[in-house]
């Protein structure tokens, strides 16, 4: 009996994926990716726990959103947290754990395009 539900669920999910087809089709294929692309996205994903997947912060969650920042603004903020010029609760402590190069990569992946 539970299996029946599972199959139903999978079928429903397949249909939903089908409906999302246009989104998925417009996404790059695997051949278009590279090790550095995956590594950079993986590094930027260390921000997602608090600020949302791909910088899409949950609305009204109480967490400051970062999706409105372009890459230059984001990098300026991150470097200010790292240097201590910008006060905060957790961000000054976290920013100090990344190299300047890593912060640059993060800002370039997550900054508003």
């Amino acid at each position, binding site marked *: 009996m539970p299996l029946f539900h599972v199959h139903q669920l999978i079928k429903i999910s397949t249909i*939903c994926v089908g409906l999302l087809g246009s989104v998925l089709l417009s996404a790059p294929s695997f051949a278009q990716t590279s090790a550095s692309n*995956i590594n950079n996205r993986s590094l930027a994903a260390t921000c997602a*726990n608090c600020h949302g997947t791909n910088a899409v912060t949950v609305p009204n969650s109480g967490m400051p959103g970062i999706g409105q920042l372009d890459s230059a603004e984001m990098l300026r903020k991150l470097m200010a947290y790292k240097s201590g010029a910008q006060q905060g609760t957790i961000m000054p402590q976290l920013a*100090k754990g990344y190299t300047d190069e890593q912060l640059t990569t993060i800002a370039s992946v997550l900054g508003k395009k």
Partner: protein
Amino acid sequence: MDRRHFLGQSLASAGLLAGCASTTPINISKAQVVVVGGGYGGATAAKYIRMFSNNTAQVTLIEPNTDFISCPMSNLVIGGSRTMAEITSPYDNLAKRHGVKLIKDMVESVDQKQKTVKLASGTTIKYDKLVLSPGVHLMMDQIKGLTEANQAGVTLQAWKAGPETVALHKQLAAMRDGGVYAISIPEAPFRCPPGPYERACQVASYFKKNKPKSKVLIFDANADIVSKAGLFRKAWATLYPGMIEYNPKHNVVAVDAKTKTIKFEVQDDVKADVLNLLPLMRAGDIAVKSGIANSNGRWVQVNYLNFAATAAKDIHVLGDSIQIAPLMPKSGHMANSHAKVAAAAIVAELGDLEVNSAPVLTNTCYSFVDATQVVHVASVHQYNAAEKTFKTVPGSGGLSPEPTVLEGIYAWGWAKNIWADSLA
């Protein structure tokens, strides 16, 4: 040591199962990735393997629960300031938005030779890559009488958020004013290092408002508070003067369900009205049953570059089940971080790309000292190639200077965003 265990260890020590060894490349769109366990590690891995493979790798998530119930924040339900609904999220967005196949079932066994998992329902599923994120198993038999006391409903652990979370709150609600709540803490490492001390705060917060003559007794097998020691000590003294009693080096060895008595290795017996005894913990059952828990038989050693178990091929292990690197907590945030590093490595391996040689992990952990005020601990862990482990970056990370309501708002912001990052 059984034969499989022995073989696994010998192969690992001979370096024959180096996790990074590239396998024969297969077409990634035909690759079957099976993820076992839909907690912070497994759910995140399922989603990010789909994302990093640009939705090409086939990912199946096997999880017995209908919904995700968060352990972080569950202490607030025990303290009565929040409800289960507020810490529960659905799994179906992983299917709808990311094309993850969801199977509501348990994995009974892993056949490493055939590369299959067998489910409780009897179904067998083939994998090219297996991700195990089975959390912790509470070693109930390490405290004499604990299993019976738990089955009788006398002592609850509530260390996996769910029915026991609600039941523990009900026990507190039913307790007389002037009663005693006792929590015992096992020797580290255990899931959520600050969790027991936060729970003491939440129970005290409930007592302060509803049953002010009551007491909270903490019996810690460790020599001192394991996490945020100064902050908790100060919060107990200022917010709950005379209510919380902290007893280090108290190792619980037995419990008598009938008389609600706790017995210690050294000290005299103690009676309490509500008993919340946490035994030693180890990796989730499927990891131990599969013979890959090669660190004292309790935790799984992994290659930190890709989270592959050192004792098996194409099995990656995440979250609380692994043998931790120095200063790496067993936390939901950390499991989510493991999952992203593992997801990137698994996609790279399946796609015949080079695995990242410099991954980064972060941890952020908020603890509520009452219903609204919060303290945090945060850390950044960079991979150290020379030592083949993650190390925290000197000068980074740290604690809150004091509890604040602002961090309480951020704590809920963290929860809502990590739930979405893992599940939506």
